């Protein structure tokens, strides 16, 4: 999946977190120029524009992206309650909107629905971190294009961790979220699988999974 365009740069951390947790790749832009400069080869997958702090800049960006031959869609606008009046006569600039303060679940539901309506599928299928890529459709993981031969549980653990970069998880949480407790190993199982994953990731990338002393594990660095 190509990244979503996100405005402003940097976006509110809550938005960044919601997109990351939902597995949507994204790039932040500050204005129309950087949007053009950073545009991926196959175009943006869509846009999420937050208008509450810099409404002038936000609407200018909307216009530049929507008033052209190939309209950028889907286009989700985030506005505060007091800005609702500003939406009048600007209906063509967005496909849907969401009120600020945002609720992550609502934002995700709206995005999902927009993608479905514009026929771009319902789910992003890749989790990417650096040169590590997980294809959720085919269950394959690769580093720099070289496939990793993972067992099912190793794959599930890596998927969970890499979908939540920077977040610290306790062993108990990982066990319940990844294993569902249906396992002989108990909580130490997590340590065992982390070691196995590190062994398979190889020396250079073994440190992607950090041990957080007396807490649990963290994958990579947070982006928010």
């Amino acid at each position, binding site marked *: 999946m190509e990244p979503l365009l996100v405005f402003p740069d940097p976006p509110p951390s809550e938005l960044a977190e919601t997109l990351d947790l939902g597995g949507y790749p994204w790039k932040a832009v500050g204005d129309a120029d950087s949007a053009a400069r950073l545009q991926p080869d196959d175009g943006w997958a869509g846009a999420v524009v937050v208008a509450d702090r810099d409404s002038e800049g936000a609407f200018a960006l909307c216009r530049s992206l929507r008033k052209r031959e190939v309209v950028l869609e889907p286009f989700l606008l985030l506005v505060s309650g007091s800005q609702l009046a500003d939406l009048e006569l600007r209906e063509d600039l967005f496909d849907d909107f969401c009120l600020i303060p945002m609720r992550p679940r609502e934002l995700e539901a709206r995005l999902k629905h927009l993608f479905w309506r514009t026929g771009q599928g319902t789910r992003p299928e890749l989790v990417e971190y650096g040169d590590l890529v997980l294809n959720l459709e085919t269950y394959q993981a690769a580093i720099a294009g070289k496939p990793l031969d993972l*067992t099912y549980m190793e794959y599930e653990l890596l998927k969970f961790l890499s979908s939540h970069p920077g977040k610290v998880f306790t062993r108990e949480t990982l066990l319940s979220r990844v294993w569902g407790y249906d396992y002989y190993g108990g909580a130490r*199982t997590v340590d065992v699988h982390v070691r196995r994953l590190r062994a398979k990731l190889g020396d250079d990338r073994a440190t992607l999974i950090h041990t957080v002393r007396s807490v649990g594990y963290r994958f990579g660095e947070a982006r928010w």
Partner: protein
Amino acid sequence: MERQQDYVMRTVEERGVRFVQLWFADVLGTPKAFSITPAELETALEEGMTFDGSAIEGFSRVQESDVLAKPDPKTFQILPLRDSKAPVARVFCDLINLDGTPFEGDPRNVLRRALERAREKGFSFYAAPEVEFFYFADADPAHAPVPLDHGSYFELSVADLTTELRKETVLILEEMGVPVEYSQHEDSPSQHEIDLRHTDALTMADTVMTLRLMVKEIARERGVYATFMPKPIAGVQGSGMHTHFSLFEGDVNAFHDPGDEHGLSKVGKGFIAGLLRHAPEITAVTNQWVNSYKRLVVGYEAPVYVAWARNNRSVVVNVPHSKRNKSDSTRIEYRAPDPACNPYLAFAMILAAGLEGIEEGYELPPETQANLYELTAEELLAEGIRPLPGNLTEAIAAMEGSELAAATLGEHVFEWFIRNKRAEWADYKTQVSQFELDRYLPRL
């Protein structure tokens, strides 16, 4: 469950796997496998693959010989073989009867049952073995084993070969997700050791099977022979599989008690007491060959006596010093097993003996202070220290009277095992050894 199967199916498709090897162990721990094509895989995952068990050691039964091998999708793993054009994958199987019940002859099932019992008590059981083995020039029994790294002057390059082999094996194991604690050259010529980091006992038993196969396969590719025979050369140390064990309750090491002088909890002490009391009964399983008892002799760092101590190599249960504030590392080391045991059955018996000690509240005998190798028979008797069985027939006799062994192994495995081992001893008794010829022929 379905997702795991889906994972296996998709991986086979995406990676172009041509064959999937279904792995399992017979009652003696010999690896068995048959290959299926990806087309057969879905059926195998859902229903299992039928095969005739009567040809497998310990699987034969009176009425019914067909058994199903049902892949455990959690263990699906592409083998890191050099020929990547047609990847081959392996998956460990549970064996089940045609009616879907677990097959009573399946060692993996024996261990599953023992682990289930531990889980009912809230325990998960961890194992970390140190596997020793020898590299020899070949497996020809017509001549004495030829070590590869001592004996003549030009052997420097050959010495490198066995170390190379071991290193290559460790790399391949790591690629397969088997974390190696460390590996080293052992005391005896051509002897090496690979220490594994702890995992739950079922995964570890699978891993020991994998390790033995990989060590042997990589040696074979280089035109030499690797063996896990417990005592291939007289006069030097044999190969053991000292294994570190611990029980966890959730995140907490159940063996650890910071208030105790040894750092050992009541659970830990009960486990040791159980192991000590039942050690003679489980030895036929942890040391299952005639040759196993050639290793368990005084003077070669192998355990001979049923006693426990901290950092003492002459006893069967050793309690390694664990680092302060590292409660997780509190564990016990059982030094009897050799690497030619069936790891599923051995871990199941050790766990059962330890649990028995915990449940029945066995008293832990005092720690042994002396080097037991140096004590006389009278001194040992005075200390109340028993020896381990001295040979296979003693071990079988001890096992035969053991309710613990019968309950843990289940009737099928228990009876077959004793019958098989009696037959082995009977064969051995008919032999005239080199020792006898050397000693008696000139004199008598």
